[in-house]
């Protein structure tokens, strides 16, 4: 049977068919749907969890593998940075049950803080890596990775990227086959799993031997395929780049690599003998190019014409390879000049009043990873640094250290609930332990918002929706030694501003937690606003635009004609604002901002 599947759902399907027993992940675009699919569609067969972070996800998967189960951890590219510690060493221990790590890159940083190329992890960690090009391969490669993981005693990486993870194409479905390996722990395996120097040195040699075997295997791997057409030009490529290039240059010959580490050197040499000129098409870094060049093979085109950055597309490949022969399509309208439509915080989002308050207080905000990075954009302009998960909390502390008392009242850290549990606890501990005085604002919207509403240890529900212990942020902060913990309802603008001001000026560590402010898209938790929506009393509105500074998508400004040029009380105006009632959820922020009482609730 064939079904249309998203790449991530196909990976989940492949893992299920391979008999995966334990699957762990921390949500991260473009990888999140893998665990969602497993916990919704295959929960009877697979034990799934949203782990607090990727390091924990991988460690749990490693433990399950040591106990004989097929296990998987999935994450986005920067997630593997977090999980890199166990990753680098599980390469040495190898596995018992097949262990697969899915890593999803994000060329063009559609939803990421960088666009690193995860293939380097394969080489760095001495771990084999497969790279699928469509949903069918996502399923097939994931399945194969489990088998080969056991066959070669190695964790296996499967690398996707946004376009493969988030594209849909037909997949032939298979049945689930339980793993042949019996479950159980065996103390005799200790030397294999205990990486103390004496055993490390033994496993270190094993790793080299394994990679040699894998390289030999890669030469006969069924998904490293030569397609001979015109022998004048041969393209070496992998993943979605194969599809882009094939689309534009179907007449060329191809070596499509299903395994991108280790490389099948014999096949590459064979291909280079069969074709006159070699072109290498790969997104991001010249990974294949560097390796193939070092084999002494002459490369006609690679990164000399193709960019090192951003996501590719058929026309990027065509333009680069055709050079001066490329003829761009005719431009009809200069669309670059059209007003842009960047993503925005939802109407009614609790982040909006909070960031509006921060903006009014003039603070420098150490941001973190989540929807609230959207507050970076105008008109809020209220986030001033974003590095990685958890970096805001430590960053604000570092800045306060450097600035001394001068810094008081000038900056704060903001971090989401899920992000705080992922990586915000150690830096908060550091602030208390090392006698800091910075303020950490936990924006508790009761979900992992940006990646599509996943549960976390602070929501009180597991990945499959079962109720569980819910972490109390106040208790947690108190246990770390924070004495000043304030709760704030962000929709009360005046109070929010007062509390933030008091805490950032305080010469001691403090934490502010937002309450009753669930994500507007939350399915379970809903904030009940007092009024269904707000409207503008046009006769009073002076068109000053103060309310527009909150950047709510429901509020717009329009110019007025001669007849409307005066307010009821005789003030000149150039325009008025209006509220789109279909978009307004009635949060009332604009009404609190308006100085002329021109925005009023509509009572049902």
């Amino acid at each position, binding site marked *: 049977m064939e079904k*249309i599947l998203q790449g991530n759902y196909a990976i989940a399907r492949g893992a299920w068919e391979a008999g995966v027993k334990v699957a762990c992940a921390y949500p991260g675009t473009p990888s999140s749907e893998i665990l969602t699919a497993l916990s919704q569609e295959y929960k009877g067969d697979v034990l799934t969890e949203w782990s607090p972070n990727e390091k924990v996800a991988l460690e749990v998967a490693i433990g399950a593998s040591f106990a004989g189960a097929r296990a998987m951890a999935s994450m986005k590219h920067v997630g593997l940075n977090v999980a890199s510690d166990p990753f680098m060493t599980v390469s040495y221990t190898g596995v018992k049950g097949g262990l697969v790590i899915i890593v999803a890159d994000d060329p063009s940083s559609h939803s990421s803080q960088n666009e690193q190329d995860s293939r380097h992890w394969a080489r760095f960690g001495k771990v084999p890596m497969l790279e699928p090009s469509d949903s069918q391969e996502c399923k097939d490669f994931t399945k194969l990775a489990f088998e080969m993981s056991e066959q070669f005693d190695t964790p296996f990486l499967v690398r996707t990227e946004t376009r493969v993870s988030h594209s849909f194409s037909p997949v032939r479905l298979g049945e689930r086959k339980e793993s042949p390996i019996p479950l159980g722990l065996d103390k005799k395996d200790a030397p294999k799993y205990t990486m103390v120097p004496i055993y490390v040195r033994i496993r270190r040699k094993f790793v080299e031997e394994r990679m040699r075997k894998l390289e030999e295997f890669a030469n006969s791997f069924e998904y490293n395929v030569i397609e001979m057409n015109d022998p004048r030009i041969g393209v070496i490529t992998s993943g979605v780049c194969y599809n882009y290039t094939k689309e534009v240059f179907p007449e060329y010959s191809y070596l499509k690599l299903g395994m991108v580490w280790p490389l099948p050197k014999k096949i590459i040499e064979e291909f280079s003998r069969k074709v006159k000129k070699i072109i290498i098409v790969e997104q991001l870094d010249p990974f294949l190019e560097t390796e193939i060049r070092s084999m002494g093979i002459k490369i006609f085109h690679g990164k000399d014409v193709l960019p090192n950055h951003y996501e590719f597309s058929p026309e990027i490949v065509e333009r680069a390879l055709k050079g001066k022969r490329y003829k761009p399509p005719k431009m009809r309208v200069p669309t670059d000049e059209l007003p842009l439509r960047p993503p925005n915080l939802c109407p009614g989002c609790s982040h909006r009043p909070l960031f509006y308050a921060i903006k009014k207080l003039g603070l420098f905000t150490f941001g973190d990873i989540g929807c609230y990075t959207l507050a970076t954009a105008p*008109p809020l302009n209220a986030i001033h640094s974003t590095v990685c998960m958890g970096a805001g909390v430590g960053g604000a502390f570092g800045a306060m250290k450097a600035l001394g008392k001068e810094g008081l009242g000038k900056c704060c850290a903001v971090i989401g609930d899920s992000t705080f549990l992922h990586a915000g606890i150690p830096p908060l501990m550091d602030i208390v332990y090392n006698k800091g005085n910075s303020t950490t604002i936990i924006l508790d919207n009761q979900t992992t918002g940006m990646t599509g509403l996943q549960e976390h240890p602070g929501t009180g529900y597991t990945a499959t929706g079962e109720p569980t212990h819910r972490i109390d942020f106040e208790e947690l902060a108190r246990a770390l030694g924070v004495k000043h913990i304030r709760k704030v309802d962000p929709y009360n603008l005046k109070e929010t501003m007062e509390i933030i001001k008091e805490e950032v000026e305080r010469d001691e560590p403090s934490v502010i937690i937002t309450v009753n402010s669930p994500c507007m898209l939350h399915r379970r938790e809903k904030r009940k606003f007092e009024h269904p929506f707000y409207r503008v009393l046009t006769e009073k509105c002076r068109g000053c635009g103060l309310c527009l500074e909150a950047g709510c998508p429901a509020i717009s400004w329009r110019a007025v004609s001669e007849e409307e040029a005066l307010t009821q009380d005789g003030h000149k105006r150039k325009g008025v604002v209006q509220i789109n009632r279909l978009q307004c959820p009635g949060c009332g922020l604009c009404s609190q901002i308006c100085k002329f009482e021109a925005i009023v609730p509509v009572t049902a």
Partner: protein
Amino acid sequence: MEERVTNVLLSGVGGQGTILASDILCTVFHEMGYDVKKSEVHGMAQRGGDVTTHFRFGKKVYSPLIKYGEVDYLVSMELLEGLRYINWLKKEGKVLLNLQEIFPPAVNLGKMKYPEDIVGQFKKFFNGRVFTVQGLDLAIECGDARATNIVILGAFSTFFDFSEEVWERNLLRHLPPKIHELNLKAFRAGRRALS
């Protein structure tokens, strides 16, 4: 089946249901025996940002992305988001526009103007191949503004000669039973609008 691949670009604003419409297209064309690929292109969490979906069908589809300038059908849920992709169309391409304006931030803030006469701009280049539907009004008549995407899908379905039954069955597969009736009404209203 002819060799060539047909390219459909769907555009709209996050939350308008562009993605659902393209999911349904995907299963319809797959059922009719085509190879299909579909890819959603949007930044961050698409919170009110622009969303486009590349949908391709044919005998064998390689790239999940349409090549710039190769769009056969541009279907837009919103006028500005249609205009944004006018250059992506082939010379002989067809355009289906939902006559709805959703202001982007710069327009809301009064800093830029919403482009004028978008339909006219399309007609200048694609005269006779520009189709328009009052999707939002029709959806509201059917009972819910949120069904605008299905009205537009209904209108778009008239471009192909598959039976209504195939469309409707695949439409319902993607929706919970309690909104089946509403969406069937919306789909049929869209079909009528262009029949």
